[in-house]
């Protein structure tokens, strides 16, 4: 039995390896904020959502398959949440009853397995009921197929068979054995004894009378019985093993169902939060990888939209522009813009909605980020070395039509050298059909593309208002040879007690 809500006709592999670049994406794109909103406190939702988002779809058709399921979910959120709760509840029920594990005593494995089978089977009835009640309300291929299969595979006859087996698996245990305890005040050095030679002992000891002290465990003393069971029979391995494996199969079905639904529940949680904050939400329009398409209206950084009021969106039309260079004021929203580009692309390729009025974009095999980083805590590298090493790692993985986002890269050296490295890297990437977004303060770097490749480069600028306050909406504008460090120094009052320098603010 399968769910196939994430891939048409295929399983969701929750254990597949993620790209080596995933950690960078999480960190650089502030993915954690989005994932927390999706999780709404549920660690499992967090993990599954992370995995789905970091395993991008690249076929527009596959993306639309999920978009349709998600649209169904948004239209009927209560039913989806109910199904998810059923799967969670079944697994919870299982956890509440006495468990079993391979190194346990066989008697415990058996009784644990039977108890678990009982609770797991009972939730199957509820699941069938959901399918019976609500199938007609859905239209997406994914959900319709799932509910139909529940009706077919869990028919009444099958339920009869299950309950017969559960009765048969009761087991009576009457084995006895004797043990010897070694020295020390609690027992050690246990050895199983045959208990058949009492006479020999009496003969050898002769005159000394044999002292035997005894006690009995109360019939309601479960812990005591458990201790004795530790010393008792282990003769029922095979039945216990089969029952345990069946319980494992059944709980893995619920785990699968829970995983497939988890992503959509996460999307519902995110949708709720964004709606409550009045953020625009739209299903993006996915295009094939080539030719490169990118246009958006009111595109916002989803992560920021979850944390701030008054988030400003950007309009960008970069069709025919494989290189987008963003320059301008510090604190001007450049990094936020870059994150909105990366996040929206990942969300689109996960089949999700994005925070925008509209978004049209090519799918790309992979998204890469190359952001300025804190000094390597492992101290292996200096800063530029670390940046170049990360760039080299990306170059080993990146393929044509991928997208890469640079944030203040190659700035760990002086401006002329940093610009030169940047130019060489970017030109090689562009010639390999990779689209590049580059946030930089290095005027020399940005300006050289204005001079040499004006037709294929889009220049955006974070503007600065006359009073020195920043806005966060980018405009199409060429780079400027200015810097703002002096402004900030004087605005915060410096540290030399010289006050505001009129010459610097003019």
């Amino acid at each position, binding site marked *: 039995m399968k769910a196939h809500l994430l891939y048409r006709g295929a399983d969701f592999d929750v254990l597949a390896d993620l790209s080596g670049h995933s950690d960078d994406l999480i960190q650089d794109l502030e993915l954690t904020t989005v994932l927390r909103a999706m999780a709404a406190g549920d660690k499992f939702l967090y993990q599954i959502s992370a995995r789905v988002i970091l395993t991008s779809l690249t076929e527009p058709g596959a993306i639309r398959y999920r978009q349709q399921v998600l649209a169904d979910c948004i239209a009927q959120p209560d039913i989806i949440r109910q199904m998810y709760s059923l799967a969670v509840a079944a697994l919870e029920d299982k956890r509440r009853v006495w468990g079993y594990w391979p190194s346990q005593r066989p008697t415990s494995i058996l009784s644990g397995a039977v108890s678990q089978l009982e609770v797991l089977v009972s939730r199957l009835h509820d699941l069938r009921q959901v399918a019976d009640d609500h199938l007609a309300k859905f239209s997406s291929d994914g959900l319709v197929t799932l509910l139909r299969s529940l009706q077919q595979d869990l028919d009444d006859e099958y339920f009869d068979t299950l309950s017969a087996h559960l009765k048969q698996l009761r087991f009576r245990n009457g084995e006895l054995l004797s043990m010897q305890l070694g020295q020390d005040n*609690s027992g050690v050095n246990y050895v199983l004894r045959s208990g058949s030679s009492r006479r020999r002992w009496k003969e050898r000891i002769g005159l000394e009378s*044999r002292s035997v002290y005894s006690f009995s465990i109360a019939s309601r003393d479960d812990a005591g019985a458990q201790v004795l069971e530790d010393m008792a029979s282990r003769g029922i391995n095979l039945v216990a093993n089969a029952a345990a494996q069946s319980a494992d199969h059944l709980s893995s079905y619920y785990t699968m169902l829970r995983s497939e639904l988890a992503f959509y529940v996460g999307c519902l949680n995110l949708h709720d939060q964004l709606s409550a904050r009045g953020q625009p939400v739209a299903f993006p329009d996915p295009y094939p990888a080539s030719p490169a398409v990118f246009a958006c209206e009111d595109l916002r950084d989803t992560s920021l939209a979850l944390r701030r009021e008054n988030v400003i969106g950007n309009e960008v039309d970069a069709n025919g522009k494989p290189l987008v260079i963003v320059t301008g004021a510090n604190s001007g929203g450049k990094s936020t813009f870059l994150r909105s580009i990366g996040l929206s692309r990942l969300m689109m390729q996960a089949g999700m909605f994005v925070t925008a009025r509209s978004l049209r974009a090519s799918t790309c095999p992979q998204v890469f980020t190359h952001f300025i980083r804190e000094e390597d805590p492992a101290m292996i590298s200096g800063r530029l070395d670390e940046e170049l090493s990360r760039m080299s790692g990306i170059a080993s993985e990146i393929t044509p039509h991928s997208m890469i986002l640079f944030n203040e890269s190659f700035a760990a050296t002086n401006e002329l050298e940093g610009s030169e490295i940047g130019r060489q890297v970017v030109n090689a990437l562009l010639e*390999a059909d990779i689209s590049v977004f580059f946030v930089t303060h290095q005027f020399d770097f940005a300006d050289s593309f204005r001079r040499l490749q004006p037709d294929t480069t889009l220049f955006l600028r974070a503007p600065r208002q006359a009073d020195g306050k920043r806005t966060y909406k980018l405009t199409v504008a060429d780079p400027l040879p200015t810097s703002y460090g002096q402004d900030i120094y004087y605005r915060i009052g410096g540290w030399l007690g010289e006050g505001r320098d009129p010459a610097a603010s003019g």
Partner: protein
Amino acid sequence: MAGLSDQRDPAAVSDLNFDQIVEAVARDHEQRDMITALLCQQVRDPATICYRQEVFRDLQDLSLFQAAVEFAEQMRQVRVHLDQLRKMSSGRQREGWFLDAAAIYCDAIRSLAVSLEGQTITSRGLTAFRDYLAGYIASSEFDRLCKDAADRKSDLAAITYQVRIKGLRVEVSRHDDEPDYSAEIQKTFERFRQGAVQDYQVQYRIWPGMTHVGAQIAELVARLYTEEFTALTAYCREHAGFADMVIRRFDRELQFYLAYLDYIRPLLAAGLAFCYPDLAAGSKDVFARDTFDLALAAKLISQGKPVVINQFHLAEPERVIVVSGPNQGGKTTFARTFGQLHRLACTGCPVPGSAARLYVYDQMFTHFEREEDLDDLTGKLEGDLLRIQKALLAATSDSIVIMNEIFTSTTVADARFLGEKVLAKVIELDLLCIYVTFIDELASVGPTVVSMTSTIVPGNPAERTYKVVRKPADGLAYALALAGKHGVTYPRLKERLGP
């Protein structure tokens, strides 16, 4: 305590990787909190530092160190045993554990006393303890503790008993040499064996602690062996609270010394030098020879890699070292070394280097690049400047400032402007400062500023020596050579990304 202040400023500690040192020294030691506190405390009283340095010097003798480690380990076992007692509900079990704890304690004390007698000890701390220990061992109380423990132990070791389980009924009797039944079973079925099978066998486990069933069994064993158990009960009553207070306190404080010495031992074995710095109060003529970044060195040594050593010195009126030069050349490491040495010196611990004179500072300020924080919408540069402003306004002429590549996310013009502003304040305050920068003009802003640069292997610009030496800034940077080394220049990328 007077003269102490906690230097656990998290940012500064992490900038210097001092947190790695503290973590590696304190590890999962029982006295982890005390060790951490002592390493993070800044002692400004030279007498206290000197007292600790003496103890360290004594313990640097290998055989004394080993004896101390052995003693500490045995005392730890004693504590673990005694801690267990509180969790035990069975009196018989408690008595067994108590006896074991006492026996270990006796052994620990006697072994340590023997080791201390055979050593030359010069520190005030250890000498006083040795004298105390001699008196303690000679006491009749200690003698009885030891002798009785040995007797009780041998009594109990001679006992073997037998348990029979029938449903919910348990019988306990003296052992009567019944044959091993599992061996009989194995022998019976051995003939059916075809080959390897999956193992469903459950290992016999001794459950942690004693269950109420186990306790009942133990009670019955005690009834079978009345004489031995009565003597045991009497022992436990007589010697309750056997551990001496002074010895326990000594053992606790010893942990700090042992933990640090244990941490630096592999480094000493690799030929690196440690010394006790001269802390001539008031002199800013600091220097260190053959020194190194302790956190980095510990890591390199554990990987079998060589450690690069460096020197620095400042002579009147010099106060500021501007470090420039090629990237990945050891500049950051050099800056950390300077900070670590000063922090360590204030704990009484030996510091990396063959000789050193260091300054007893009041506050240390560090500023290394931080990751961009989404919450900080005022922007990275403004955040940097606000932190620097706060530090420089709080600094006094007794402070130390260590800054590393702070303005890299802005333009060269800004970096130069702001670097000059920082150094102007540093010079005005006359404080000790390490300033790591790419802007090499900053190395020549005044007579109190000294230039040091990272260096390369002549003829191979991508290779670094990790040596930082005192010489004028030469404006060389080797970024493109480095890019070539990583295969990310244009021609190399064309090859790598090509079809």
